């Protein structure tokens, strides 16, 4: 039972077909399975429904699949950074289903955990609840949301072993762990591929059972969407974006 594949093309061989649903991990450009996205672009597969919190930016990440018009529909929470996306959407060439970010995360988690539907406060009384069942529990209103399950999930992890056990790094974790559980087949690209036993079993974020195929991607430069820094001379308290004293 070999899970390790030599390159992105091999790792996706036999898994792609027109009209399929693909989940792609990542938040913005952080923790995206970029090499697998490249291979999907190269394959030419089309009419895809893509479940991903964002849609990449122009020419990067999922933006590439938009450039080549391989995507029919996006299921996302925020797609603001992509001009080609806007063009196709406004031109009626691309369908979009917006989900609140937490509802999207929970729908994916539910799909992977055998839960076909759940109730949430999020979106009650808004467009998001239109056409959905709204029910009261203990005096509060909740909307019913459905689990999501894909034909294929592609995820990015920092470290993985040949059994498919994965560890994510910092905020590059985001949607990857749930997506890994919510597809017929999950393919993981990892920055460091190690032998079983090299990862402390208490540190594993995604157990190998969820990973059908795994691929080592050599470390390369990762893109930063919003490079924000502070000057070395500035006092710490003056830096925006967070603080704890």
């Amino acid at each position, binding site marked *: 039972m070999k899970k390790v594949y030599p390159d992105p093309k091999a790792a996706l061989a036999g898994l792609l077909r027109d009209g399929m649903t693909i989940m792609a991990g990542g*938040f*913005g*450009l*952080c*923790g995206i399975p970029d090499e697998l996205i490249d291979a999907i672009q190269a394959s030419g597969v089309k009419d895809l429904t893509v479940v991903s*919190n964002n849609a990449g930016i122009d020419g990067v990440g999922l933006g590439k699949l938009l450039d080549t018009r391989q995507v029919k529909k996006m299921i996302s*929470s*925020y*797609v*603001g950074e992509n001009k080609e996306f806007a063009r196709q959407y*406004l031109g009626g060439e691309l369908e*979009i289903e*917006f989900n*609140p*970010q*937490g*509802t*999207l*995360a*929970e729908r*994916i*988690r539910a799909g992977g955990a055998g839960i076909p539907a759940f109730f*949430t*406060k*999020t*979106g*009650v*009384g*808004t*467009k*998001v609840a239109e056409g959905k069942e709204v029910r009261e529990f203990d005096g509060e209103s909740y909307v019913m949301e459905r689990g999501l399950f894909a034909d294929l999930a592609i995820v990015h992890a920092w470290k993985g072993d040949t059994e498919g056990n994965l560890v994510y*790094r*910092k*905020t*590059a*974790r*985001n*949607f*990857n*762990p*749930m997506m890994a559980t919510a597809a017929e087949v999950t393919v993981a690209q990892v920055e460091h591929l190690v032998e079983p036993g090299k990862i402390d079993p208490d540190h594993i974020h995604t157990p190998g059972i969820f990973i059908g195929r795994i691929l080592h991607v050599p470390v390369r430069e*990762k*893109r*930063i*969407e*919003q*490079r*924000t*820094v*502070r000057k*070395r001379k500035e006092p*710490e308290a*003056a*830096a*925006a*974006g*967070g*603080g*704890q*004293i």
Partner: protein
Amino acid sequence: MAWTREQMAERAARELEDGFYVNLGIGIPTLVSNYIPEGMSVQLQSENGMLGMGPFPYEGEEDPDLINAGKQTITALPTTSYFSSADSFGMIRGGHIDLSILGAMQVAQNGDLANWMIPGKMVKGMGGAMDLVAGVKKVVVVMEHVAKGKDGSESPKLLKACDLPLTGTQVVDMVITDLGVFTIDKKGEGGMTLVELAEGVTEDEIRAKTEGAFKVALR
């Protein structure tokens, strides 16, 4: 004299309490982190999967794997923990975050909030805003008191009812504008109350620029 952006952020920071876990939206809310009182322990949550968010990195120390919900590079603190988006929004939806400070396009006198889409314009999506306003214990909106059109016209943002698509219904507890501070009895019948005026701003000025009904109980 209306409050500046910094003064609005400073006023919002007065809603912080020791031990609070807080989620800050983009824009003025982000500035609130500059006004956390010394000696007060406040942990910032970033809904993309982090608790204990630190300041921006020094130049050259940016880590592409460490960003906030606005996709900006940030840093970690000794208290930091990372988690998945599902766990992050479990935290939010489950009512574990004490305070969310965020911007708005419109707020209604019953606490309804609109801040995610304008019909006819390109819709970018609601991101985590709907989850935050539905799940966080206390929601504070920080915004300009009126919207300014390109022609210089002004239109109120504190309304009887929002006409933009809603982000949440009966979710806002407090509104801080450049002119003053309002509380909203979002779950009850108490409506909206003006509780503070910016220095030099009069009740009449606020009344002229506010469509929503409000009581006055200055403190």
